[in-house]
Structures are given as C-alpha cells and as structure tokens.
C-alpha cells in the first residue's frame, strides 16, 4: 500500500477512535499484510507535517501509549465555550498533592498518603476517583488490608503523558536544599 493511502487510513482511524490509537490497534485495523512497510510513528509524523503546512487547527498528540487528535491551544478560547464550565475544573492543590504521591509511590494506601501529606486525604481521594484519574487496585498485605490506589490511563491522557516515565524524577532531598541555599544567596 502506498504511503499516502496509509496516511489517509490513519487519519480515518484517528477521527473515529474514542481512545488513544495504539500501534497494536492500528495493525489490527489494517489486517492486510501491508503492516511492516511504514511505522505508525512515521505516518503520524507525516500527517502532523501536512497539518502544519496546511495550517490546520489540530494536530496528533502522542499520549497514553497511543495517538489522538487534539485542537491547538491557540483555539482554546473558542473551543472551551463548547463545554460547560464544570467539565474543565482544575484540580485543587490537595488533589494535586495526593495525585503526585500516588503517581510516584503507587500502589499506595490512604494511610501512607496521609503520612506524607500530614493531613487527612479522604476528600481529594474521592475527587480523584470520581474523575477516574486513580483507581483502587487491590489491597495491602499488611494488617487492616488497606485499599491501594494507582493512576489510570485517563490520568496519562489528562496530563498529556505517553507513559509514567515521561514525568521528571522526584528530586532528592539534597538537591532541594541546595536550591534553597542558592536562592537565599
């Protein structure tokens, strides 16, 4: 199959997919033996170049191990009017802190989260569950068999991440101190 045709197929799949289109899913959809010629990544790159040169208002974004169409941030003002306010509510500081702890320490129990935050975290956990950014994944082996939380695919998508490895490493305490000292000088 020609590259041009493959690009159009990719485009059609991206328009129709309800979730990020993964390479595996893409190959399943092709299912005609022409798979090995051009990688999905190369097709996406070509499409993105095409969109850019023809000044489209969208691009293909690499997220949660797959690809999805997104509108360009320049058009936020207009697109956001399509949505009700509540659908774009930003997370509270408490929710972000709780989420950060879960992200780097998953799977983790509520007690352990609270030990780090030093404050009760019931309500941010509930918010994160309701927004499907985290999920319950099993129970702790220790006494009490506490519920364990971990991040979801929606989490990756929400923050525009391909994998968890895209996040910066937690800084070591020592680096934080050095920073602080430099700021004071």
């Amino acid at each position, binding site marked *: 199959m020609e590259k041009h045709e493959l690009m159009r197929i990719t485009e059609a799949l*991206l*328009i*129709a*997919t*309800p979730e990020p289109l993964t390479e595996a899913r893409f190959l399943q959809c092709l299912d005609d033996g022409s798979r090995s010629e051009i990688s999905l990544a190369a097709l996406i790159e070509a499409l993105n170049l095409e969109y850019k040169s023809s000044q489209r208002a*969208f691009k293909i*974004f690499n997220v949660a191990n797959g690809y*999805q*169409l*997104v*509108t*360009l*941030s320049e058009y*936020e003002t207009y*697109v*956001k009017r399509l*949505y009700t306010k509540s659908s*774009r509510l*930003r*997370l509270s*500081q*408490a929710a*972000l*802190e709780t*989420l*950060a*702890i879960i*992200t*780097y320490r998953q799977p983790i129990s509520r007690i352990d989260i609270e030990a*780090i*935050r*030093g*404050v*009760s975290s019931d*309500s941010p956990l509930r918010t994160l*569950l*309701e927004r499907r950014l985290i*999920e*319950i994944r099993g129970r702790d082996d220790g006494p009490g068999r506490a519920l364990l939380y971990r991040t979801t695919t929606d989490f990756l*998508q*929400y*923050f*525009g*991440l391909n994998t968890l490895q895209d*996040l*910066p490493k*937690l*800084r070591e*305490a020592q680096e*934080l*101190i050095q920073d*602080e000292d430099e700021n*004071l000088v």
Partner: protein
Amino acid sequence: MAKSSSMQNYSVDLPIFEGPLDLLLFLIKKDELNIYDIPISKITKDFLAYLEVIKELRLTSAGDFVLMAATLMKIKARMLLPQSPQEGEEIDDPRNELVNMLLEYRRFKEAAEHLGDREHTQNRMYYRIPAGSEGEFEVGAADLLADVKLYDIMLTFQYLLQNYEAPYSHEVVLEEVSTTEQGAYLKMLLGQKEELWFSQIIQELGSRLVVIVTFLSILELIRNREILMEQNELFSDLRIRRGERFGKA
C-alpha cells in the same frame, strides 16, 4: 451519617496551607530558617498562633494541626532535656523525624506543582470525542462489564438509595429478611427473565432495610459468580444477568 456529611459542607479550607507540614514549610521559608536546624521554640510559637486561627475557622483539618502542635511541643521538651549518649553513639536530634517528614512532603509538593503546570497546558487542548462515545453506543455486555468498578457500584447504590422512598405506612412490623432469602428471590426472578434492573427490583421491596439486604445478597451472588452486574455510566441503573455459575452453586 447524613449529619456529619452536611457538617463537613460548612467547613472551609484555607487557600494557602494544605496542612501542618505545608504551614511549617511556609514558616521556614518566610524567616529563611535552616531546615536542618529549625529553631524549635520560635517555630512552635508561630505555629500555635496560627493554630488559633484554624480553630476559629473550624477547619476539617484542624485535628491534624493540633496533632502537629503537640509534636512540636514534645520535640521542644525533649531538646530541653540533657542527653547522655552511650559511648560511640551519636546524639539523636529530636528534630530529625520532623525534618525528614518536611523534606519528603516538599518533594511531593514540587511534583504536584509540576502536575499542575501540565494540567494547565493540557487543559488548553481538546481531544476529539467521537459522537456517541459517552455510552450511547450499542455496546456488547462484555464491554460494559469491563469498566464497572466496585466503587461505581457503591456510588450508584448510594444514589439509588437516596432517591428511594419507602411506601408510607403506619404499621410497625418486625421485618424478617435475610440475604439468603433475598438471594433466592433474585435467582427466582432471573430464572424467569434474562435480565433485571436494580431500580425495578427495589420498587417492589417494602422498605429501606429490605433494599439494603437485597443489595448485600447481590454482592454475595456476584462474588459467587452466580450473577453479573453491569452499568452504562456512573449513576445509571444497574443491570443484573445470570452469571457463569448461575444455578450451580
């Protein structure tokens, strides 16, 4: 139960401080203190002054602040006591544990800031959502089941129960109802019909108690794989069908 949750609605969260550790970090930064050598009596004094405000505001997290105040005073007391280390042993600074907690918390606070920045950037781009992907699709039962989490079931149950009005009645009767009985009743219904809807079942039940017992029996039957429960979206009705071990247990 209902009372305590409505009480919580009245409480507010201070915009700046997420908890006692956050406040301590603020105090340390404000006065440019060395985190490894915190002047404990000064910081305790500042902290207690702030605690008064928190008590005044009746914050939900007030308890956590009180606990930290107690910890600070304990550390302060221990620092006043002379230490007599065993030979070759280092003097254990009573502040160590607190310092470690502060440093650990600060790492995550920083990570949270990073997530917040990403959220901000990401919120300006909108993903394409194909029409109908919000559950209006005709989807197979397996797809539906795949996404139902226990948490969703509990939320839906809570929601349905809130909207459930028991038939008005003056009679006081002792209700004898058991999960075994309700389980048998459900299985009898499922023997006649392919599928049941939870909202329909509860309409035919006499009281809140019976609804709860019936729900427990459903959970029990799901556990035994005698029935399956499915849901389209959050708060939508729960569909009950025969499971792989239906009638075999």
